[in-house]
């Protein structure tokens, strides 16, 4: 007896046509998913080794967008960060290991940055800032090791910020150099609460996601840190990134490309597929 037929027959008995319904998981997250928000100047890899263990063009785009979320405010933002775990390849209907060079649509961008976290800009102390990056890179694999389950806590940084990491050093001492908007940050951090850096990040990180709770404490609720939640475009990370893309990378000529903002010493690097 073909058991599959049996199942089908039984199912047909019980399940009158139309009685079953399922969610439409392919429903786009935005009204106009095909609207082009900008152009990619190169192929962008979305596998976790690329979003959590290396510089990534879309991570940098989002960090830049966060950096400019509060443009015009009295105190300018110096740094935007986004955790690599916020960039996803799964998509709603299909998994996208990479995004091709060329136009990027609003629908796809919202699927890559799909958690819809709000963006908050807040003052951090130097200790917190360095702590953030130490936590960001503490799980990076040493050169020669395989990159296995990279941590989503890895942070991408905005334009004007460079970070040098030495994976040969012990966790907690891996950041060897950090410059934020031209300011050189002292490594190790000075224990001076008056030294502040204005940093934009998602509520996910600020609320302690991916293990940042111990470093950031209640900075998001502390008036002294002057937390400001982005208002434009609903304040969500994906909307802010899309708007920034539209204004900054509007054409194939002005297209988004990855920048070497984080320099990896002695770290494992993901193997890039051969360019097509």
């Amino acid at each position, binding site marked *: *007896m073909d*058991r*599959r037929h*049996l*199942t089908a027959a*039984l*199912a047909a*008995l*019980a*399940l009158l046509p139309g*009685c*079953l*319904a*399922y*969610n*439409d*998981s392919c*429903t786009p997250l935005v009204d106009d998913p095909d609207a082009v928000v900008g152009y990619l100047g190169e192929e962008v890899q979305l596998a976790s080794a690329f979003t959590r263990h290396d510089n990534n063009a879309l991570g940098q785009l989002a960090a830049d967008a966060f950096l400019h979320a509060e443009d015009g405010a009295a105190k300018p933002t110096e740094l935007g960060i986004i955790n690599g*775990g*916020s960039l*996803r390849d*799964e*998509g*709603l*209907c299909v998994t996208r290991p990479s995004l091709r060079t060329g136009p990027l649509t609003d629908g796809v961008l919202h699927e890559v940055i*799909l*958690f*819809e*976290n709000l963006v908050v800009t807040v003052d951090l102390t130097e200790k917190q800032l360095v702590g953030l990056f130490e936590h960001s890179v503490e799980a990076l694999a040493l050169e020669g*090791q*395989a990159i*296995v*389950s990279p*941590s*989503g806590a890895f942070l991408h940084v905005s334009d004007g910020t460079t970070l040098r990491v030495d994976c040969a050093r012990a966790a907690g001492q891996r950041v060897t150099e950090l410059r934020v908007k031209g300011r050189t940050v002292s490594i190790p951090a000075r224990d001076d609460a008056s030294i502040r850096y204005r940093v934009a990040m998602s509520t*996910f990180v600020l*609320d302690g*996601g*991916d*293990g940042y709770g111990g470093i950031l404490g209640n900075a998001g609720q502390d008036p002294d840190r002057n937390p400001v939640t982005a208002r434009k475009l609903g304040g969500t990370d994906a909307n802010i990134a899309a708007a920034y893309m539209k204004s900054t990378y509007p054409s194939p000529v002005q297209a988004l490309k990855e920048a070497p903002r984080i320099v990896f010493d002695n770290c494992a690097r993901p193997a890039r597929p051969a360019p097509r």
Partner: protein
Amino acid sequence: MVFVAAPVHAQEPALLHAPPQRAEVRQPLQLDATLVDGGKVLELFVRYRGPGEPYVQVPMELQYGDLYRAILPAEHMVSPGVEYFIEAAMVDGARTPLFMSALRPARVMVGAQTPVPPPVRAPPVRKGTREDPKSAPDIDAFAPPSGGGEDDEPARTPPPTPSTSRPDGTNARASTQAGPPDSRTPNRADSVDARSSTRPGTSDSRAPGTPSGTDPRAPSRTDATSDPRASSRVAGTDSRVPSRTDATDSSSSSRTDASRAAPRTDASDSRASPRANGTDPRTPGRTDTGASRASSSDDAMAALNADVPPDTRADSRASSSSSRTAMDDDLALYSAEDVLAVTSLQEEAVRTVPAIGASFNRAQMIALGARTVSDVLDVVPGVSVSRDVQGFHRTAIRGLRNDAEVLFLLDGHRLNNFFDGKALMNLPVENLERIEVIRGPGSAIYGAGAFQGVVNLITNHSDGVRGAVTTGGVPRDDGRLALATDGHLSAAHTTGDLRLFADLDLWTQEGDSLVIDHDALDDESVDQGLRDVDEPAGRTRDGRFLVNAGGGVSYGLDSAGRVGVTARYLAEKRDALVGLFDTVGNDSELSWNVLLADLTWERPFSDGGQVRARLGFDQQSTDRLFQLTPHDFRTGDGADRLFPDGLQEQTQVTVRTVTASVDADLALAKENHLTLGFVAEQQSLSQYDYTTNYTLDGRLRPSPAAPEGLVDLTQGAASSRLNLGLSAQDQWTVLSALTLTFGLRLDATQLPDADAGTLDARKMVVRVNPRVGLVIAASDALVLKALYGRAFRAPTPQELVERIPDTDYNQGRFEGNPLLQPTTVDTFELGVDLVQAAGDTRVRVRANGFLQNFASPITPVDTSGNIVPLRNRELGVRVYGVEAEARLEASKRAAAWVNASLSRAQDLELPEQARLLTDVPQARFNAGVSMPLGDWVNLDVVVRSGAERRNNNRSTLELIRRYKIPAYSLITAQLRTEPIWEHFEVTLFAQNLFDHDLRDDVPRPDRVTGLLPREGVSGYLTLRAFY
């Protein structure tokens, strides 16, 4: 014990009534009867008389549907007893006796009485009735009164009615009410009695042949009149012997019966003749058409009058053929109202307690090929049982699955753990008399926790000794048989006012072992060289050892009621099926110990009501050790990052509950019953230890210890809780065909007060739960129900406060939220129940639709990709659907049933395209067939199937972790013998004989890519013995 029935097709009025065996002195006696084909009946009367008195008449009032009730006043209830019969006033003015007659009344013993030894029928016949000393005094007291006109009775009696005297099972209700009536309470002597006595009675019933159409006992009765002494003795045995029969089960009854046949004939007892004709359906000559027709028509009656409590009828049938025929199933399926008699606290309000329910008695469970409770629950319409990676059986009702929202009771004692709401419910069915399921809320009767449904497990306390051994196992893919064996032994005995029972279940299984190709640590394990890339991640493990031991004693204090003490101990040790979450952890060990103890007291009121009190205690200790990674796993470089035994965590929790409750049942008027209840319950978390062998940064600890930052849950407001509940339920029969039920329950639950600012501040949260039921008996065959009920549940301490520090290896756990509020559900149900009979074939159809609105449900929805606090979903969840069941019976041993359910659950907080929740199949379909294969063997086939499931879309993570769980079907088949040598029964069965695509969900289907494999085909042999 006499059971009167008429062939269905005769269309003559007939009465299903089982007389009580015994009644209390000076206590009113309630008699219930079910009228069939009563179209021409205007009124029903009970005519009764005390010793030396003339017959007095009281009307029977229609209660609901086709159930009639009469109360014999307390002043007539004097020792040694009363006699009665039931008469109908017909449309044409005639009076027809429907149950017994003036000449042959039923007899109820009143007052204390030495119990008659179990083998009921044997004494009267073998030793000669005259030698039965116990019956003599009672009988002599009944000097025939001036019996004018009574001699005419037999002549007028139409063949179909009293002639078919079926000394059937006691009507459980009648018996219950006659005695102190709580069939749920283990100690209840009378209820148990009733059940046990039923069986022998029934077997007897079929014997005094319906086929002949004549009253087999009439002659003896006639003789009796000529010889007062002899007659009285015969009469005494007739009415009383079966009623006092304490023979526990079918085996003894059939044995005695068989042994009786010859002596009876020799004694030229009038009853011998019909039996000698081979009409006894239990004899091999059963296949005789006359006999089978007779028995099946008896069953027709039974089926049609399934409103008779399930246990009684089931037992009766079981005894008659010893086979637990599938017919028995319908009792349960079709007598939900009666079932609720046991599930609800108010026995008097049984019929009209607003609820949609089902019940499975022993016979049914056996016919299903069920070994455990979850096997049974999975065929209830609207109920789905699935297993999670940790191996827990999770019961979903109407499309939603939450452990804390299905109330499990064992003999009325709650099994759900105070800490996490889980219940050690998957017990072997051998020890169970019945499983009852109410779908929808039960909060008007129960408090918090009876939310999505109530499942009541009732252990078997009937007198006698029972044993069963099942052995078999699962053929593993390595060719080995994974053995599984369970044994059951139980005994109960009644001596005077003292009743004792004890039972023991032992269960051991190696369990199936199925390949898990991928788990969450695939990459790491391969990278660290712990296994090859083409090796599977591991295998499931399903070993289990279970002990279930219980015992109790109860004592009747005459007018002061009955007191009882029961205790039960459950202990389970088992493997985790996979592990904590999505990593194979074969060293995981889970143990669970439960101790339940109850002290009960109950006393009937003189007006028919009763009062009951219970003091209960329970303690549950769980010890769950999970292996989170493979052996020799590394979290990094360095000696302290190597874990030879893998990363491990262990959670040990002990909770205690002390409960005191009082409830009283008051008869305000004949048509109005009020039930009041009060319950106070103190629950506490007395131990909570969470230890890991690793630090938060992934280093090996020298010895397991609590991680930094762990909250001590035994302190603080959530660690203990006082629940107070006040309930009132009134059942009012407005018109004969219309019964209204109003219930109100007021619950005050102590919860943490998050506003107070201190950790241990508590506040009482008060919830009011109303319940309204409208039951319309549109005709004899059709009953309509409209029900509304509200229920609530308070968050568990785990949901409120458990916070386990997050690491990469124990991720996926949610964070407690002290701000959680109780969640409530409003349920609307419409039900219809229809019975049709044509010839020997009977069909019963029951269907209902429901709409449930859950306000502020407590749901862990992880929207951010990280551990988030649980919260109340503000916009709620809505579930609606239909459930339907049908049963067709062609003969006593041949039946088919089918049920289907369809539900749609929606989380209203989500956009339209993402609302549907499919934790469990939206559609379920179950069906079964039972048929005889010759005289001695029955074949049962049960099919279970479920529709495809998909992931929920409540959060972004759920959106991107797409998965489908395919539709499945399972077939269980078994061969079951009729009783062998009257003490044994053998069942050979295969579970999951054809298993297609049965899979369960896991938390991360993207990691355990093949989903969780479920147990495959398994085969067992069961030997049952009863004495």
